[in-house]
């Protein structure tokens, strides 16, 4: 057997080993999260190694506890889900309103400074959130915006704009300019061209981008922790869950139910749009 056949065979086997290992490593934690969330806590303590619970043992009391409002003895996550949804949707709408014209300008129009603008976006994208945390914390305290969902939304918009413009610009540059020119000749103003021609054509990219922005806002933790921690009414789910874990003794199974509730919306959205999302993110990657 020469080196070539040896290597070819080796990698054929190795490939499946790697695939199995990766599938296990990425899927198991999520599977485990779900299994624990429907297990009674005594059952977990009795047999921590169990990979499966018999159906008769299943319980939904963990979900009841985590979702029902506080005055009913629960942890009130339903209210926090609403907060998270408001902040995330608000971030999506505002980011799109700002970044659609922005990305159009960057990809189509030559304006003063249009070259430098790329550098600015890269800088903002790379600029670490923890460095902004200090001045924004102080600034929002001064402005009285700190304990508000509006303030949080503004921060998220600024954080998501660079990626949003990058994704949309990549897509817009694949739309032939001649279509827009034709509309302009037919008498559309630039705003009308953008609104009636470009936006509908870019709808898939805009959807993918909206989902990505939603994901970032929904998952965010640092700024929610810094800004909202004082006012329980305004917590997002991520923050609520973290506080739950750090607070009084709450069974781990309840914590897992909360994690499932927090994860489900994102995973559903992600599977609905996986292809669009990955293409939107990586288009242009082959040029680097």
């Amino acid at each position, binding site marked *: 057997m020469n080196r070539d056949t040896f290597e070819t065979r080796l990698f054929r086997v190795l490939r499946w080993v790697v695939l199995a290992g990766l*599938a296990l490593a990425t899927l198991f934690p999520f599977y485990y999260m779900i299994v624990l969330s429907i297990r009674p806590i005594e059952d977990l303590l009795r047999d921590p190694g169990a990979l499966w619970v018999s159906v008769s043992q299943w319980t939904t009391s963990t979900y009841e506890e985590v979702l029902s409002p506080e005055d009913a003895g629960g942890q009130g996550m339903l209210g926090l889900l609403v907060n998270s949804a408001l902040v995330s949707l608000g971030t999506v709408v505002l980011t799109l309103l700002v970044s659609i014209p922005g990305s159009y300008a960057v990809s189509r*129009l030559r304006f003063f400074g249009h070259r430098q603008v790329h550098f600015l976006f890269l800088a903002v994208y790379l600029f670490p959130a923890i460095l902004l945390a*200090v001045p924004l*914390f102080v600034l929002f305290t001064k402005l009285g915006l700190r304990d508000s969902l509006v303030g949080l939304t503004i921060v998220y918009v600024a954080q998501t704009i660079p990626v949003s413009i990058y994704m949309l610009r990549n897509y817009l540059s694949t739309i032939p300019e001649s279509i827009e020119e034709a509309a302009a000749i037919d008498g559309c103003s630039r705003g009308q061209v953008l609104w009636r021609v470009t936006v509908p054509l870019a709808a898939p990219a805009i959807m993918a981008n909206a989902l990505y922005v939603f994901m970032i806002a929904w998952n965010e933790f640092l700024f929610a922790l810094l800004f909202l921690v004082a006012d329980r009414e305004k917590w997002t789910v991520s923050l609520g869950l973290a506080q739950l874990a750090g607070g009084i003794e709450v069974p781990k199974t309840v914590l897992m139910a909360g994690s499932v509730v927090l994860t489900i919306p994102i995973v559903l959205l992600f*599977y609905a749009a996986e292809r669009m999302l*990955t293409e939107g993110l990586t288009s242009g990657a082959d040029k*680097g």
Partner: protein
Amino acid sequence: MKKGSLRQQENRAGLAMISPTLLVVLAVVVLPMLWTLVLAFQRIRLINVRDTGLFERYTLQNFVSVFGSPGFWSSVATTLVYAIGGTVLSLALGLVAALALRKPFRGRGFLRGAMLLPYVAPVVAVAFVWEVMLSPQYGIVNEWGARLFGWDRPIAFLTQREATISLLGMDIPVPVALLTVIVFEGWRYFPFAFLFLLARLQAIPGELEEAARVDGATPTQRFRHILLPQLAGVIALLAMLRFVMNFTKFDDVYLLTGGGAGTDVASVRVYDFITARFDVGAASAQALALAAVLLVFLAVYLKFFAPKPEDKA
């Protein structure tokens, strides 16, 4: 109304369309960033922040106390180890995953989706699952470790600073908690590298490899001499991105260990300065030190590894 030339019109329209973006970025990123510079040189606590002006009492005191505070230099070292370890691990895993998923097979779409889960799932949720899985009391990892490998004692993955492993008669110290958070980082961010490397791999023309195969190059040789050079640009870019992100990562470490057991990365220290001591000045100084290190690394990347303008398509 007098209309300008087409060129001027375009300029005006472009500026008008980009200005909301610039406004937000200016207000929420650039100005706060500049303000950090000011804050770092003032003795400010959250209590007196309201009546401290821009031009008051500049001092180097914050830097003196931050650099001199116990644990500063060890935290720099921890941050570096964490950032480099997390970067290398996520890139290596991402590369292996991209190579394994390169050719189509049944279920590839599903697997590709599954592999992105750690990246898209909320950090709070995945950090908790890891915490529960790694728990010494009821964690499944310790339970199965005892069953399969005969661990005599459960390992406290997230709370134990150091363990010694005896290997060939030598006692080797292992930073347990730090390694665990690095592995978590690698796990959570390999999908990011995977996604970009897979996209790049699929854009490489098949003839290149076909020609090498005909010339008798083995799979490892083809990887070494054909695929790797093609991937080098993306790998350098990803390494830079991941390093910058890991270097200032907060939530992962904060949620897993709270910065304890030898995982005192710089960003958690910044957070502690603000929330535990309300010391805005010291927090800014610490943040600034972090930014300075980052700038050095970015400059090195731009000088030596960034694609030159003429390479760009």
